[in-house]
């Protein structure tokens, strides 16, 4: 934690350092632009700083010292699956054969990349019980949007455009209702029952011939398995609606239960959660979209297709001896979701992770993720309220409501106090239905020792809160900056550097 501590000042903004002409030269001097283009098309001024390579290296190295990542410490961020990001995946994604391939390279010169996409697609389809996946969407929310566009087009083709309602439980991720709204659907919010689950009786009240899609995640964001999922899916299907699986919590189910078998027709997977793609400070993500057989034709373009080559298309994961092409000619497709085919470098990482695990390894991954979450839940329940005291899946929620009444210390204060102790904070104030919520997801890559240390740190914070609440409310004090004036940030937005004077 020392490198994140307050004893080093922030490096100056890159715009406030350097001197014209100081930049390291990476290319030769060019002739003046005026030799090639008329002056009215050219810029008169390029107000960027010139810094030497050493100064730039120091600048960003110092910035990295002011940034917390999984590599520095435990990251129990609920619903984000902050597991270890294996280095071998990065090494493989950076092989020149993958890294330098142009997206318009002809298919016959891109067989390796197409094989990667094919093997990943086949494996995902099997793991999650879908007929096919598209690797096109760039992130989870992007895949949700694609899925709802698929649903919209599917219903339009069936002459059922009156289906305008999307049902979203109140525990859902915020992207679900936002994606639905982007497709012009009306969002129906569904309250959870006393067990923290979607109630079959409640959902039946809102189902009808105007139901388009029901969006759920299972386990839900409280970490609870929706044990009546088959009944819910049957009810939605009975009225002609589609079931969408938000794969944000897929780390809890691999080898255990498949969305396809639970009755879902569409799903996305965040490979940057479940399949160890580094989050990189909030992206790039990667959000494969899976669909059941009746929706395959609607997937975004392009899809990777195995060329039969005289042999039957066996559609199995290992690709040896097969040839592939990108298929753009799909008349029912919703069209492309992004500039190019996929966040391909992430597909490489995800496949590499699959090779590290195989089917049995993935099963074990989910089992141990659930084991860690329950171990943490039992430990935390000794000093914080756990509103749903039962076996959870990959994550669980605790509430600081009681502590707040007793001491004034809120979930946010606990989060900030954890930062002082070298841990990332859990997700706070989500899901919205639990007051003073702390949502924790340890993932399977954390050891028992780490979980024990975290439990003890949290216990110590709660005890401190009871003895000296002010000290917890003042946290963090060991970080490079203290709590930030967010009101000022929003009222007087300062979103860019400007040349002064």
């Amino acid at each position, binding site marked *: 934690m020392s490198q994140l501590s307050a004893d080093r000042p922030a490096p100056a903004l890159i715009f406030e350092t350097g001197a014209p002409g100081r930049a390291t030269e990476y290319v030769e001097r060019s002739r003046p632009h005026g030799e090639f283009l008329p002056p009215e098309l050219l810029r008169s001024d390029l107000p*960027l700083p010139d810094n030497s390579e050493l100064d730039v290296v120091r600048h960003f190295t110092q910035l990295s010292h002011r940034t917390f990542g999984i590599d520095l410490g435990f990251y129990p961020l609920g619903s984000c699956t*902050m597991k270890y990001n294996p280095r071998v995946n990065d090494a493989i994604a950076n092989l020149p054969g993958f890294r330098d391939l142009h997206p318009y390279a002809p298919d016959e010169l891109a067989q390796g990349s197409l094989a990667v996409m094919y093997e990943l697609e086949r494996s995902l389809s099997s793991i999650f019980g879908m007929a096919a996946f598209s690797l096109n969407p760039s992130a989870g929310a992007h895949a949700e949007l694609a899925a709802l*566009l698929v649903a919209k087009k599917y219903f339009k083709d069936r002459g059922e455009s009156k289906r305008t309602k999307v049902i979203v439980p109140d525990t859902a991720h915020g992207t679900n*209702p936002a994606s639905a709204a982007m497709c012009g659907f009306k969002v129906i919010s569904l309250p959870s029952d006393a067990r923290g689950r979607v109630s079959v009786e409640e959902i039946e009240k809102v189902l009808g011939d105007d139901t388009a899609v029901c969006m759920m995640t299972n386990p839900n964001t409280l970490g609870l398995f929706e044990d009546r999922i088959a009944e819910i899916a049957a009810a939605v299907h009975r009225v002609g609606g589609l079931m969408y699986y938000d794969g944000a919590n897929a780390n809890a189910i691999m080898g255990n239960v498949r969305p396809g078998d639970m009755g879902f027709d569409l799903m996305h997977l965040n490979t940057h959660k479940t399949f160890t793609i580094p989050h990189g400070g909030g992206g*790039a993500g990667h959000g494969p979209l899976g669909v059941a057989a009746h929706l395959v034709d609607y997937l975004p373009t392009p899809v990777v297709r195995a060329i039969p080559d005289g042999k039957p298309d066996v559609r199995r994961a290992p690709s040896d001896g097969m040839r592939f092409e990108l298929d753009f000619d799909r008349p029912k497709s919703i069209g492309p979701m992004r*500039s190019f085919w996929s966040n391909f470098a992430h597909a490489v990482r995800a496949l590499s992770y699959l090779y590290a695990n195989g089917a049995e390894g993935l099963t074990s991954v989910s089992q141990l993720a659930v084991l860690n979450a329950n171990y943490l839940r039992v430990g935390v329940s000794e000093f914080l309220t756990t509103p749903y005291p039962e076996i959870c899946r990959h994550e669980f929620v605790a509430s600081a409501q009681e502590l707040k009444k007793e001491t004034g210390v809120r979930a946010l204060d606990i989060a900030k106090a954890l930062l002082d102790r070298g841990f990332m904070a859990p997700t706070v104030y989500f899901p919205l239905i639990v007051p003073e919520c702390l949502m924790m997801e340890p993932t399977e890559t954390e050891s028992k020792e780490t979980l024990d240390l975290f439990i003890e740190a949290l216990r110590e914070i709660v005890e401190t809160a009871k003895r000296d609440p002010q000290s917890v409310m003042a946290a963090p004090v060991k970080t490079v900056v203290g709590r930030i004036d967010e009101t000022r940030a929003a009222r007087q937005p300062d979103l860019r550097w400007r040349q002064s004077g």
Partner: protein
Amino acid sequence: MGAYTPHTPQEISQMLERIGVGSLEELLAVSPEIAPKAPLDVVPALPEYQIERRMKALAARNRADEYASFLGAGAYRHYAPPAIAALAMRGEFLTAYTPYQAEVSQGYLQAIYEWQSYICLLTGMEIANASVYDGATALAEGSIMAINATGRARLLVSRAVDPRYRAVLHTYCGGLDIEIDEIAVGADGRTDGDSAIAAIEAKKYAAVIVQSPNFFGVIDEIDARIRAAIETSGTVPIAVISEAISLGALRPPAEWGAQIVVGEAQSFGVALAYGGPYVGFIASTAEHMRRIPGRLVGRSVDNRGGEAYTLTLQAREQHIRREKASSNICTNQAHCALIATIYLALVGASGLRDVAGLNLERSRELATAVTSVPGVSLRFEAPFFNEIVVRVGNAAEVLAGLQQRGVLAGVDLGRFYPEYADSILMAATELTTTGEIAKLTAALREVVHVAALR
């Protein structure tokens, strides 16, 4: 056991006992009706050295590196100093989440603030967001900004905008019942001004969208006459930049009237990687600040009185507004934006100017060389940046012949424009060598000649 899991069998037993459950299977019990019926068909588990061997074998099946390449069309091969990877691949950056806990994310937040500033300085806009997925999605999201600003449900897009960007725009608009009209391309390769003006005067558009350099490499500013029509009609002018290096030479879109600038920054050090991840940007004038989608980093102060960075204006976003959010975007492309920021910091104004100048220079070398071949000509006359449209006869046939001779000459324009099936879109960058141009030219001489004989 799963890969990268640290549990010993003894620990698993201890933990199960503490939880009060007999086995891992019991912990994850599901009812038999939804349990998997068959084993999973997944690639086999391999030890790490064999994973590397396997994946290297797959990488070796990509053969494009053996060819002289003039491929561009929205993804460009540029020099990326190794210092970029050395910095960006640091674990602190690579393994951080979205910087919600600002106190332990100051470094990344500052880097994104610097990215936003760079995009503003390059485009001449007032604000820029923390990045979006890529150029095409930036266009779709930027168009939605204009739709929300004007309350109009119709867009006017130049046919010289990258066809894939337009296709993505169609995909997005399919959800929102937005209509899209197109402006024709003039004989010189620019957006046709007269059709643009006629269209703008005929209907109420939310936005007029042009790209410069456009898909054909031609510099395609919104000219003064079109600007006047746009202003009268209350339409939002949107500029698309897909070759960001051009901003090192060409005047910023703010100077030719854009209110929203969207684009792709792959050229700033981001690997080609068969199409992604790349990094889109959205910048705008101050009046559109509240409509800009995605994350924004702001500078404020902390409770110790010092300067500090934080995500700001979050009330616009999906996790708070849910179905009322202006966009569903959750992630940005932080890591690619970081790469682009490091690229710009390294090359500086001098380097960017030189790279842009070398692109101008090499593409003119390319144009001169290929048009020296009998039967080969430039389709458009308007000034270009680093891409040219080369008329060769039957583009698909000529491209196949060139490929046999070790050259990937570019993109067959007939793939997107049936009327240009006789033309190839070719790009030259600072990495294009005189030798590669000579190889292309020699091959063209053979192939075009052969094609003519048929």
